[in-house]
């Protein structure tokens, strides 16, 4: 015991020497049920580097934490000695408005960044929660409705500073939008969920804030899935330049389906485009109720609060088959998933409520995978995937978070190179079944 205490205090001293804002972990710091021994809040990339260097010396497992919004999603860490909390790195370092570029510390919140950029009439064109951090958004790769037009965080990220598991600081990209010098480490860290290293700074390309926005919605009866799917395809394939093409279907087969289209531009421009988009949505198939509004429809870009979130991706032509599969899998498992997401960009989230039995959730996931195999696994290569983004860990371990992940063996090789000790968020990412 004495030896163990001595070792712990030695480690504490090493972490404190690297980063003064180091304290013992508490229950409130637990990551998916795992309480860390230590929590440290570096104030700079240099401090973060010293911290991860000390963690490497003492062979500590490390979990990076931004706002903590995504920590409960996915598999819990198999071990967590140290949480690196990014709360003290919350600054917008540079906003080069004339260049439409911003360099930001990873702990800066999306809301803070948005308020700084808005002063110059600019934005980071991502729909993330205002309290999410920039580093968390990059690490999880989450994108909202406007993924359709602007892409995911990886599409807007032009430069990255990260600290490797061994404490080495690495930069890639830069602060110009057009740049092909060297490997794009930013892409690698996109979606890495803290398993490759700690993101400390990110540089983004920005977009002007639109003068006007308008939402065009088309509501289809519960039996008219084909009509809704046709409307999604019609909107997504139009030259009216929608910024988002969403589908919202709150409660299984008995509830209506709503297709929502966001148009951004000038006041006169979006008004005319909305009229024409309304015609397209109404004329695609079925007889929907079409409405135009300057404000977002309910639940826009929000996932229903739920304990299980299953993401399905697909080629848009297969949307009718995907909707059918969601219904059938729900019936088979005795659950009623709430479905929403950027259908025009080829993705939907199926959410199960918190009272769903684990068995039922597992059956739903298995049934969905089974029914979508032919949709997602084309003879000429993958055409989509079914991934469990969030679920109770018992469901995740039984059902498996991922189906086959293309390039899983190469991902493993990348992990081996970047974090040979498997100390960065161990157990979080699954490389395929």
């Amino acid at each position: 015991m004495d030896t163990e205490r001595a070792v712990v205090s030695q480690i504490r001293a090493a972490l404190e020497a690297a980063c003064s804002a180091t304290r013992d972990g508490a229950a409130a710091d637990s990551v998916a049920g795992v309480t860390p021994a230590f929590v440290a809040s570096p104030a700079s990339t240099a401090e973060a580097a010293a911290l991860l260097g000390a963690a490497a010396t003492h062979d500590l497992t490390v979990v990076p934490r931004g706002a903590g919004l995504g920590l409960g999603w996915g598999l819990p860490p198999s071990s967590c000695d140290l949480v690196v909390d990014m709360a003290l790195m919350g600054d917008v370092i540079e906003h080069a408005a004339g260049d439409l570029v911003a360099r930001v510390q990873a702990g800066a919140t999306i809301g803070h960044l948005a308020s700084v950029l808005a002063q110059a009439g600019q934005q980071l064109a991502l729909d993330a929660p205002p309290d999410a951090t920039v580093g968390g958004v990059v690490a999880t790769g989450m994108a909202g409705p406007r993924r359709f037009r602007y892409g995911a965080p990886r599409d807007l990220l032009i430069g990255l500073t990260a600290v490797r598991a061994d404490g080495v600081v690495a930069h890639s990209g830069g602060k110009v939008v057009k740049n092909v010098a060297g490997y794009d480490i930013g892409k690698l860290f996109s979606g890495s969920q803290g398993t490759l290293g700690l993101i400390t700074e990110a540089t983004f390309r920005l977009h002007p804030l639109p003068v006007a926005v308008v939402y065009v919605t088309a509501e289809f009866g519960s039996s008219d899935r084909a009509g809704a799917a046709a409307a999604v395809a019609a909107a997504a394939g139009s030259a009216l330049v929608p910024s988002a093409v969403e589908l919202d279907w709150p409660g299984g087969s008995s509830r209506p389906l709503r297709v929502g289209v966001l148009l951004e531009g000038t006041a006169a421009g979006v008004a005319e485009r909305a009229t024409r988009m309304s015609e397209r949505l109404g004329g695609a198939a079925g007889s929907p109720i079409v409405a135009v509004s300057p404000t977002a429809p309910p639940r826009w870009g929000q996932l229903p609060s739920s304990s299980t979130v299953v993401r399905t991706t697909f080629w848009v032509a297969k949307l009718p088959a995907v909707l059918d599969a969601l219904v059938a899998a729900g019936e088979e498992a005795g659950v009623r998933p709430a479905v929403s997401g950027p259908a025009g960009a080829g993705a939907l989230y199926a959410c199960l409520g918190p009272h769903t039995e684990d068995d039922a959730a597992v059956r739903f996931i298995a049934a969905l995978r089974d029914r979508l195999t032919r949709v997602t696994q084309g003879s000429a290569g993958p055409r989509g995937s079914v991934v469990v983004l969030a679920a109770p860990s018992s469901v995740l371990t039984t059902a498996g978070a991922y189906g086959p992940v293309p390039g899983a063996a190469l991902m493993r090789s990348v992990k081996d190179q970047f974090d040979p000790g498997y100390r960065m968020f161990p157990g979080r990412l699954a490389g395929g079944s």
Partner: protein
Amino acid sequence: MAATTIEGLVPRMRQVCGAANVITDPLELRTYECDGLTAHRMVPALVVLPGTAGEVAAVVAECAKAGVPFVARGSGTGLSGGALPHPDGVLVVMSRMRKILEVDPVSRRAVVEPGATNLSVSKAAAPFGLFYAPDPSSQVVCSVGGNVAENSGGAHCLKNGFTVHHVTGLEIVTPAGELTWLGDGTGVTTGYDLLGAFTGSEGTLGIVTKIVVKLMPLPETVHTLLAAYATTSDGGRAVSDVIGAGIVPAAIEMMDALSIEAAEAAVGCNYPEGAGAVLIVELDGPACEVEGELATVRALCEAAGATEIRAADDPAERAVIWAGRKSAFAAVGRISPAFIVQDGVVPRTSLGEVLARIAALSADAGIRVANVFHAGDGNLHPLVLYDDASPAQTEAAEELSGAILDTCLEHGGSITGEHGVGVDKSRYMPKMFNADDLDTMQLVRCAFDPASLCNPGKVFPTPRLCGEVPGHRRAPHPAVAAGLAEIF
């Protein structure tokens, strides 16, 4: 020794690709000695032209087994020597694999083979009112596989992004000779974005055998303006004002007096006489948005001191305006025996300062520089003109060329915006990235190609020894133990 190894490979390569598709004749091999950057030449030991993904995999597997380096080549239009052959290696030429395998207009996706030309994708998509957005100037001949390797841009990437934004799935042959897919084909990534990291890796992480690309609806309206200015700094002011007005044009291009003169001589583009700079601004989108933007852009161009403005509203008129710009690289060949194309990038707001610096450097060196650039994204293509018959001029031109890149870096820019590092700019990489940055990039190389056989000697000034890959040191995750998933 290398020669005997290669000779040993020939029979097997003939089995894999067919005898007609294995080139050993020295004269024929010479035709592959360089890509679009002719300053670097190297005759490959062997050239193979596989016809299928399986054949590419078999070719690479043989190379891996024999420890022979290999280099992939598309149409050979690259401008950084990325497809420069290895003297003891196999050049894998993708020109037989040029099929458009599928166009799905509803999903707005196409699946193409790597040798397909960039333009052929847009041609196949056109009947459905769709197009493939990346449009490098060489799009008539350059291959999509090459575009993936270089993360190619083009004049319209200001608004639409680069190749990496338009590729949603890749089938590749790994440097070990295994076929695998990167990305699930939809553009939504799971885990590390290997699809994104591979795109732009300049052929050093594997060979692409199939590409899933996004198609976009053709814009409803396209308007092109040409504005003439007395100086590039006047033109630069117009660029800043347009961007400052919250407008993202499809393209903003500028040419200076010397490049205008060259283009005039080459294609008679009939740009306004005596102009010190011409600015080309293209706007596209729904008519109800573009008409308003057009009026704003025109007003801003005038306010910045345009001496003349021309508008093109139909494809024929547009082609006339673009003819000068698109011919620029080739055109300077008419006013100079030799030239170096640079590809530096600077923050757009530094353009004026950097152009002034380039002019000063040019005057000091007594070497002419013609400037053609993607003004909207600060990507400069200074054309350094010299006489390659004079060793002194050649050296001065190379020095000037390097000084221009230094200037770009001093302003927070990049050594390459779209042409890639290749062999040409690897020596500048340590100026842009420190040793730790380069070491980190090479970790990716080690993950994909530990034996360093795949297009070796490109991008990085010095190779990294990859060493042994350590295994797990921790207890397996329950899901791994249960045999359900591979977790890390």
